[in-house]
């Protein structure tokens, strides 16, 4: 089972530690702040109060044996750079670091960060995409040219199969999944929905009203689908 160490339990660090724990991964959470650590007890596998810039202490904790470290230090740019360097020197396979600026990001890459993230910027870009196009629920940029969108099925696609729609031929996009809300009756008699996802739908998969199509293609071609 993959093991993660999360250093820094501010808003982002706490959220990622919780999300990974929910997926039943082993998570070691580290922060200098005792209150933040207390909040995580019982949620993550292990929560330790310590100064993560102390690389001897990190080694003693066995951090070198973890698969992935996520470094999310709020204000202290220098600390996140030092910790990244220590973790890479210890031999961690993957070190992901939250950056505050382009310069911070550049330095992190130089000292060995495997991935640098800007959570607010990335979320803002995705939100802007979905606000600009209400039919698009989510957008993931794969490159400057290609992306993936989640889009409510256009009316002209409803009650047709993917084979009928000929998405690749006519629109130059691929349907990689279909998401659908399926109504269920709860024990108290009320109605709720469970999400059903068909991955890699075949040509005989029928699309119904309310379905969300997850489409992969060039951004220009995905824009055309959105305008249908």
């Amino acid at each position: 089972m993959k093991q993660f160490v999360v250093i820094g339990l501010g808003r982002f660090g706490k959220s990622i530690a919780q999300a990974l724990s929910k997926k039943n991964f082993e998570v070691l959470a580290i922060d200098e702040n005792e209150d933040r650590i207390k909040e995580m007890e019982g949620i993550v596998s292990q929560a330790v109060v310590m100064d993560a810039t102390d690389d001897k202490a990190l080694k003693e904790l066995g951090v070198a044996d973890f698969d992935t470290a996520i470094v999310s230090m709020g204000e202290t740019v220098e600390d996140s750079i030092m910790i990244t360097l220590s973790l890479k020197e210890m031999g961690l396979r993957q070190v992901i670091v939250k950056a505050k600026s382009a310069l911070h990001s550049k330095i992190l890459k130089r000292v060995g960060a495997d991935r640098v993230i800007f959570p607010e910027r990335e979320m803002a870009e995705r939100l802007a995409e979905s606000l600009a196009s209400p039919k698009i629920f989510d957008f993931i940029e794969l490159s400057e040219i290609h992306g993936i969108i989640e889009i409510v099925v256009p009316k002209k696609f409803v009650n047709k199969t993917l084979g009928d729609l000929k998405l690749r031929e006519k629109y130059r996009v691929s349907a990689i999944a279909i998401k659908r809300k399926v109504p269920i009756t709860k024990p108290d008699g009320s109605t709720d929905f469970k999400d059903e996802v068909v991955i890699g739908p075949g040509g005989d998969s029928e699309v119904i009203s309310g379905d969300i199509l997850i489409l992969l293609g060039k951004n220009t071609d995905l824009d055309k689908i959105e305008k249908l």
Partner: protein
Amino acid sequence: MSDFEHLIELSDFYILSQKYEEALKSLKKAEKINRMEPKLYYNMGLAYEGLNDKDNARNAYRLALELDADLLSAREHLDKLIEE
């Protein structure tokens, strides 16, 4: 059974059958008869939610809650939509 009750029951059936557009047709007819029934708007919320029309779903659940602030299921659905 009154026409209103029949239309609401029909909308229940359509929602469970994933025929959300038909459910909305029944509910809009029902709305012309009685606009004060929280279940009407709750079912509208379900139908819009099934169609992934989140804006209309939120509005419908809010209307249901204005008519019955204790309608827990409407509150749960609305909260889930707000967080999504």
